[in-house]
């Protein structure tokens, strides 16, 4: 052991170490306050998040390799079987889609009679999940589409079964999606059967959500499907969100305790859909403002 070098370590750190810690603590406190209160740090976060994209790719590599390997070793028979299954499934879905087109057209004609705005079909882009939150208390996932694909803040994300969440951070090549199960998330929903509105809160568990502020007397049953109501303007209307799992009526509370199961496979889906919401324009009624302007 060389004495010289070890002596130096004492002098380098000794008296200054506490001051350095103090400086770091003060700086990080300032950083936290600025980040909580203001949005000036968002561009910094965006640049740094883009810089660590390769780390996300690397951590997704084992999954990709295992998928690739299992594809490589799948026999021809299984593949053909799968193909047949998909073909028949596609036929069934196409038949449904045919009906949907005529139903949508009819619905729009009826809405025209009511002077309501036309229902527009949203466009979607398929995205792949490349990362999930390493922390069970913060529920988000990372997608492989970002600014390059025109992903925007607040965009709704679906899987093949229902609503997954919304985009909360857009970077150059990736984006971060807050899941509907996160404890800071809430979705406005309505019961598909009768249109009763409610709000589904995430509670931090991946397998269930809770409905808040539903009166004990409201008409809601176990098994009811909840779809997004479109209120609040964040999520498109009519996508399945959850189904009612259990209802507890506690006389001592003013609201029923309702537990719902998310329709989307929050912890399993890998291929997701980003919904591009085209704004619905009013059909017959022009906005009141322009009418008034013309009258002048």
């Amino acid at each position: 052991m060389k004495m010289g070098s070890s002596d130096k370590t004492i002098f380098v750190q000794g008296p200054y170490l506490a001051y350095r810690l103090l400086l770091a603590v003060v700086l990080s406190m300032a950083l936290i306050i600025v980040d909580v209160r203001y949005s000036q740090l968002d561009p910094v976060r965006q640049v740094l998040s883009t810089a660590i994209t390769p780390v996300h790719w690397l951590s997704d590599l084992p999954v990709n390799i295992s998928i690739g390997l299992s594809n490589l070793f799948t026999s021809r028979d299984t593949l053909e079987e799968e193909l047949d299954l998909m073909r028949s499934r596609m036929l069934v879905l196409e038949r449904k889609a045919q009906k949907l087109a005529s139903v949508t057209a009819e619905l729009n004609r009826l809405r025209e009679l009511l002077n309501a705005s036309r229902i527009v079909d949203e466009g979607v882009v398929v995205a792949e999940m490349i990362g999930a939150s390493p922390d069970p208390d913060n529920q988000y996932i990372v997608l492989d589409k970002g600014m390059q694909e025109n992903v925007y803040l607040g965009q709704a994300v679906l899987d093949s079964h229902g609503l997954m969440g919304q985009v909360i951070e857009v970077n150059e090549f990736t984006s971060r999606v807050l899941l509907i199960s996160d404890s800071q998330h809430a979705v406005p929903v309505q019961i598909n059967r009768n249109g009763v509105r409610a709000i589904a809160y995430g509670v931090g568990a991946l397998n269930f959500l809770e409905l808040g502020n539903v009166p004990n007397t409201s008409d809601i049953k176990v098994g009811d499907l909840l779809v997004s109501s479109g209120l609040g303007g964040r999520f498109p209307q009519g996508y399945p969100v959850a189904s009612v799992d259990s209802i507890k009526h506690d006389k001592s509370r003013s609201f029923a305790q309702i537990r719902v199961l998310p329709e989307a496979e929050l912890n399993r889906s890998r291929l997701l859909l980003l919904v591009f919401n085209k704004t619905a324009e009013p059909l017959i009624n022009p906005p009141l403002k322009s009418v008034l302007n013309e009258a002048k």
Partner: protein
Amino acid sequence: MAQTRVSWLAVFLSFLFAAVLELLVLPDSVLFIRPEWLVLTMVYWLLRHPEKIGIMTGCVIGLLMDIMSGSYLGIHILSLSLVSYLVLTMHRRFKMFPILQQSFVIFFIVGIQLMVVYTLRSSLGGFDSGLSYLWVALSSAVFWPIILIFIDRLVFALR
């Protein structure tokens, strides 16, 4: 551990590896005992090169963790600079400890780091998850000898 030149390549590679491990998608059943790989790697380098790696490096790694976890910027910077301070004040004694005692100390260091992070997060409106972080501290302590051997090998291979 004689004082030698810092192999910055080994530092970079070990932190990259830890970051990849940190982001690895794991099933929910084991997610709550995922060790704090980056903190363990940080402690390793603080012990090995206390003259070069210090609170500044802690701040940089903290910033990386803030970005990766999507938390408010500064939370992990604060906690990692605290870890750096704690380890640097006792690195001479720490190196003398037998491996089991080292793991024991790691449990407290990671526990303190997580306590800072969770307290700040829940006071800023996040989700309060009680004392579940103690599991993470425990698994970090269990993985400490493995980290030690692994990065030692890495340094040796890159020499």
